């Protein structure tokens, strides 16, 4: 059940990304400072999507053993 929840979140994100990154009004010209440069952040997205899963897993995992002191 937990796994389905993660996957559902991921498919929702994909649907949102498809719309906000590829569709909608595109304003161009010199007045625009920044528009999401999708091509360059492709790798970032792949990492992002797998990180959603990792984060969920980390949250679910119990913390065992003594807490380490930061160096």
């Amino acid at each position, binding site marked *: 059940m937990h796994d*389905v929840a993660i*996957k*559902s979140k*991921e*498919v*929702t994100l*994909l*649907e949102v*990304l*498809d719309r906000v*990154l*590829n569709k909608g009004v595109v304003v161009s010209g010199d007045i625009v400072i920044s528009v999401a440069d*999708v*091509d*360059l952040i*492709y*790798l970032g*997205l*792949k990492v992002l999507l797998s990180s959603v899963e990792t984060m969920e897993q980390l949250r679910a995992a119990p913390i065992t053993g003594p807490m380490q002191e930061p160096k």
Partner: protein
Amino acid sequence: MTINRVVETDFPEEFIEEMGKTDDVLPKKIDANPENVEKGLAKLVLTLIELIRKLLEKQAMRRVEAGSLSEEEIERVGETLMKLENKMEELKQIFGLKDEELNLNLGPLGDLM
């Protein structure tokens, strides 16, 4: 009136997989390497040749379907198509291009092939 947006499916994993196969949502990284300009030209030329080859093949198949080719004609067309196909494989290998790469995206019209 608040409308709540949903993304509903009983098979999220399958859809994630399929959506990842085309570069719609997650576009492929642009290869800005100047060495690949040559490859780009080869890609274009070979794509067009592939298009013509596929059209010729389809034409031949239509005639086979209609029964309008004699045994001898089938033999000859077969030989020519086979040679063409082998030649294309050779060229693809020489330029290090895969089948999926030999396509053109025509924007709203979709892909060429």
